[in-house]
């Protein structure tokens, strides 16, 4: 109880409250504009939070992170365009409901499901805190190294169908993290004699380039879309009543969100896909999924909103970010000399609990705000793409230039922006680069520290958690290889023309075969009858 009071004491400041309010409202608005998303907003705001208290800066960023998915459901439901990438599944059932004239019902369901997911995950986080506080100190250098390695393995494995390129990009992330002056022996790595490379690549510059500038370039080279907002009927409160009719779907989805959020490298996508498919399997009416099913909408929205709070667990307890947004938040901790990890739970538990309570309050503010402001938030979807691109370009300058007033940083960010643009156009993942950069740095430091204390390689995994993590990594790699082998099909490399010609000749050969077979049969029959006749 004392802990909660001291946490409330941390929060009971006007600047924290203001940050929470601005983060909540700003996050909803950012989520409601397709093409911006929380990654862009957080990347731009990161340098601005460096001058704030850690609790103020983190509350602001958490506010945007936690509330953007609420806002993202608005365009997903009303105009079939997800506001944030994780609202993609919401379009499956939300938009068909809008087409039926039930847009407000769909929005209400999305808000209530998101609220449930958000609250559920924060409650889980609070309940798990004592356990985490006991487990976290058991993580030494080798356990943190293995946990970071697990995160990297999972981020590659999670990109099904793109594992090879995700691995290559994670490798690229590790490489750019190593550029510059190496901290142990003070030697230069891949600087090519250039002084501007000696300091290495700043994480925030890379993040701003890959997320914000690339998005600006993408929007600036796009055509504008004509958006027609459909009329809808119903009350924005009816979703809360309807949610109560599907406790099993909501409970399972929220649990998936919490579990997947806690695992580094997995995140919202897997959580909502898992919960969506399990909801469909459990549903009495699975055929309605994808055609405006309220259960489908609940499953996807509950799961993706349960992730942000859960994603804070590996970040706060171990200092390991599970995805790009928590990787950005890690830099806020470091700037303020607050080192997330086992020590945080031992020394600054009130700070951790304050963050949990902030997340709890955030969900209440967001739902209250959405219930009164959905009418005008809808109009944010009308902002033309290229105008939005101009706005992001201008804001990106603020983000990059304010770090250390360096034009070189802006050039580096622009180059990474171009790389991000190409990756986005090719539909290749960007997150492995960021996680490779962050986790690669953590792994290097922790491996160096842990190898100094082991004599034989087996000593590395002689502690229970290290052994467990090692086994999990082996199982994941083994099961992935087994699955890939089982699903392996020889790659068909023939050109389309060649394929068509082969298919045609097969059909013809089949026909000729059938033709000749029938002729032979006729002849045989004739012969037979001839014989009989004779």
């Amino acid at each position, binding site marked *: 109880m004392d802990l909660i009071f001291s946490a409330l004491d941390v929060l009971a400041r006007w600047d924290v409250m203001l940050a929470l309010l601005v983060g909540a409202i700003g996050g909803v608005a950012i989520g409601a504009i397709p093409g911006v998303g929380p990654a862009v907003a957080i990347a731009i705001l990161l340098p*601005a939070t460096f*001058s704030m208290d850690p609790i103020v800066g983190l509350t602001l960023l958490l506010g945007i992170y936690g509330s953007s998915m609420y806002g993202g459901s608005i365009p997903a439901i009303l105009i079939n365009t997800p506001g944030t990438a994780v609202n993609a599944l919401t379009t499956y059932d939300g938009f068909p409901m809008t087409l039926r004239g039930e847009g407000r019902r769909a929005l209400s369901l999305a808000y209530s499901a998101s609220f449930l997911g958000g609250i559920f995950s924060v409650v889980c986080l609070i309940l798990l805190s004592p356990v985490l506080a006991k487990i976290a100190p058991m993580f030494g250098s080798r356990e943190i190294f293995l946990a970071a390695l697990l995160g990297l393995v999972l981020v590659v494995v*999670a990109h*099904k*169908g*793109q594992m*090879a*390129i995700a*691995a*290559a*990009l*994670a*490798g*690229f*992330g*590790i490489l750019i993290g*190593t550029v510059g002056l190496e901290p*142990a*022996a003070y*030697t*230069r*790595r891949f600087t*090519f004699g250039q002084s501007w490379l000696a300091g290495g690549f700043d994480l925030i510059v890379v993040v701003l380039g890959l997320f914000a500038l690339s998005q*600006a370039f993408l929007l*600036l*080279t796009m055509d504008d879309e004509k958006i027609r907002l459909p009329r809808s009927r119903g009350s924005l409160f009816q979703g809360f009543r309807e949610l109560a009719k599907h406790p099993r779907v909501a409970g399972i989805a929220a649990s998936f969100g919490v579990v997947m959020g806690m695992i580094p490298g997995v995140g919202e996508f897997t959580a909502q*896909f898992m919960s*969506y*498919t399990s909801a469909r399997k459990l549903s009495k009416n699975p055929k309605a999924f994808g055609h405006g099913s309220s259960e489908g909408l609940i499953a996807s929205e509950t799961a993706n909103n349960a992730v942000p709070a859960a994603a804070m667990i590996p970040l706060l307890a171990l200092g390991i970010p599970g995805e790009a947004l928590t990787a950005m938040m890690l830099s806020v901790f470091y700037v303020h000399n607050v080192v997330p990890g086992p020590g945080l739970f031992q020394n600054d538990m009130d700070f951790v609990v304050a963050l949990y309570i902030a997340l709890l309050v955030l969900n209440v503010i967001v739902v209250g705000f959405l219930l009164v402001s959905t009418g005008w938030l809808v109009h944010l979807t009308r902002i*033309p793409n*290229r*105008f939005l*691109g*101009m706005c992001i*370009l*201008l804001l*990106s*300058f*603020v983000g990059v230039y*304010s770090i250390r*007033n360096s034009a070189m940083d*802006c050039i580096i960010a*622009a180059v990474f*922006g*171009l790389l991000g*643009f*190409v990756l986005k*156009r*090719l*539909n*290749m993942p960007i997150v492995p680069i960021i996680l490779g950069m962050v986790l690669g740095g953590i*792994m*290097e430091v922790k*491996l*160096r*520290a842990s*190898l100094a204390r082991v004599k034989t390689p087996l000593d590395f995994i002689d502690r229970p958690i290290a052994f467990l993590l090692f086994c999990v990594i082996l199982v994941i790699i083994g099961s992935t290889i087994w699955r890939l082998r089982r699903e392996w099909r020889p*790659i*068909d*490399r023939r050109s389309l023309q060649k394929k068509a010609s082969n298919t045609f000749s097969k059909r013809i050969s089949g026909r000729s075969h059938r033709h000749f077979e029938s002729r032979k049969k006729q002849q045989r029959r004739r012969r037979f009858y001839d014989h009989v006749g004779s």
Partner: protein
Amino acid sequence: MDNSELLKVKTKTSGQVVFVVAGLAISLLLLSQIGNQTEWSENARNIGGQPRLWPAIALVIMVFGFAAHYWLMRRRRPNALDWVEARRWVEPLEYLLWFLIYVAVVPRFGFMPMSILFACTLTYRLGYRSRAALGLAAAFGIATVVLFKGLLGVNIPGAQVYEYLPDSIRTFFLVYL
């Protein structure tokens, strides 16, 4: 449709081969330079302390990753569509130039005036030429400066031209605009 099918992301086919081959070539080039660009320390206590270890791991992952993706691709030779896509990758260079010009002029002529000018001229260039659009762009430029420099106090230095302003207003311009 099962989980694995839902989770599968399809990489865009056109342009893929150009990107992957370029990535593989750069990775191999960097790997060939690892001897010159990193050092093998004799004083390192263990392999974890070797400065060359992590760049080597990263480059090996990159080479294997790009090579595996290339090997798994259905079409390994670029065709006309790949080059059309590759040409689209240079389209944002114009806006990159706009961005770099903005970066160059802000420290000289000031954050507020250049933000308004940048927002309005780029909006005009993008084809939004109505008074409302240009007014909105100017308002956005002003709002950005007021929010970030005025209220949040982000670190953007005052412009060189502000030095020529009268003493009474110079400090205000340097601090807030």
